[in-house]
């Protein structure tokens, strides 16, 4: 089965093994390996990508449903030598430890800040409540979101 979708603003034709193949598998097979496999139960957020700007767990998202929609993966944000402001904020605050949860965290942060440029602590916690960090670096992650908000507003 073939679907047409937009990944990181590029039109893509994807081969999928059926409407219900998990989006995570399709993305990784097509080279978008920033989305990580964690629990495969929609519980950990390691596989979070954005669909039309909203964070979803790609491990439980039927790939067929992305037809005509806009997918944003971590590869769509920045490059190693040209980081996005959110990625830069994570780096500067030391919010990255093992890094496995980071793509999902960064994308959830992007989804939040696109809609709410200066979130309060409670709003940050709510937006990131589906992203688990097993290194438990949550304090610095919240700091990173606040710094990213300032950077995006041109205040840092």
């Amino acid at each position, binding site marked *: 089965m073939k679907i047409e979708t937009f990944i990181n603003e590029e039109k893509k034709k994807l081969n999928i093994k*059926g409407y*219900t193949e998990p989006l995570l598998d399709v993305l990784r097979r097509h080279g978008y390996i920033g989305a990580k496999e964690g629990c495969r139960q*929609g519980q950990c957020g390691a596989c979070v990508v954005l669909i039309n700007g909203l964070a979803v767990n790609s491990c439980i998202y039927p790939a067929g449903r992305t037809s005509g929609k806009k997918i944003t993966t971590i590869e769509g944000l920045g490059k190693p030598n040209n980081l996005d402001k959110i990625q830069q904020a994570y780096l500067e605050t030391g919010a990255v430890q093992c890094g496995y949860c980071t793509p999902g965290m960064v994308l959830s942060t992007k989804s939040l800040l696109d809609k709410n440029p200066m979130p309060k602590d409670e709003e940050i916690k709510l937006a990131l409540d589906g992203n688990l960090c097993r290194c438990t670096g949550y304090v610095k992650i919240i700091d990173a979101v606040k710094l990213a908000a300032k950077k995006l507003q041109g205040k840092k």
Partner: protein
Amino acid sequence: MNNNTVYLPKKLPEALKILNSGKEKILPLAGGTTLLINPTENASYIELDGLNLNYIKSDKNNLSVGAMTTIGQLSVWPQAQKRAQGEPWNGLIRKCAIAIASTPNRNMITAGGNIVGLRPWSALPGVLLLLDGKIITAKGKIYPAKEFFSKLPKTILGKDIVTEIRIPLDNKDLIGGWKKFSLTSTDYPILSMGVLYKLKNKSTIENIKIVATGLTILPQRFIKTEKLLKNKQLTANTIKLLTKSLQDEAVISADIRVAKDYKREILGAIFLELINNKYNRGATEVAEKDKNK
């Protein structure tokens, strides 16, 4: 990966026709959060995503929510609508919505799926019972929430599809509260509870509705306790007696995580918390939100 066949109708009548074709076991596919984890064997699905059932509309009488509206959209709706401010029960809908799962899953779980699936995290049925909501179907049927949740919704629906939930907006004077009790904020609730009431003379309850979810598969209303509360002044003593009545009235199914008595105790504690918040409009988070303004 499972190999379930998925039909992709473009219009609702087409979806109904497929559902009623009788050829095979066919299930409507709403948010799809359980599809890849726990697919129904030998079933085909009808994709509802393309049927324009994703909307939130309000007029002076009703709030209408399309069945494919996500819980994430519901959770931000009252904030997006200035007119909703000052209507305390709107805090109830938001509190209920953010108590369901986590943000990435709330962006998938739909209003329709939450009320039909009756999963452990289904909180919306409780809120619909509190607010006298109605459930509208593709065949044009309109079920009051009380009727829709009297049995398993799938049994009541048969080969029909939920298209909309509708909540009357004429009950602005009501005070509401919703509380989820779980091990972590995103965990499945051990139980959830909601109250909606109207006060007269600041401390006498004119009317009250009490609902809990997570005690049995179906949401539960506490009619006996509600009757006892009517026209009662809220003194410490009456609240104590009524908490006991509520605990006695509760029907609790076995739960592998906790004992029935534990749930009964928690039920009482949450009721006390919700009812004691009467002067800050019932919902703690609404009061906190106001405080932060």
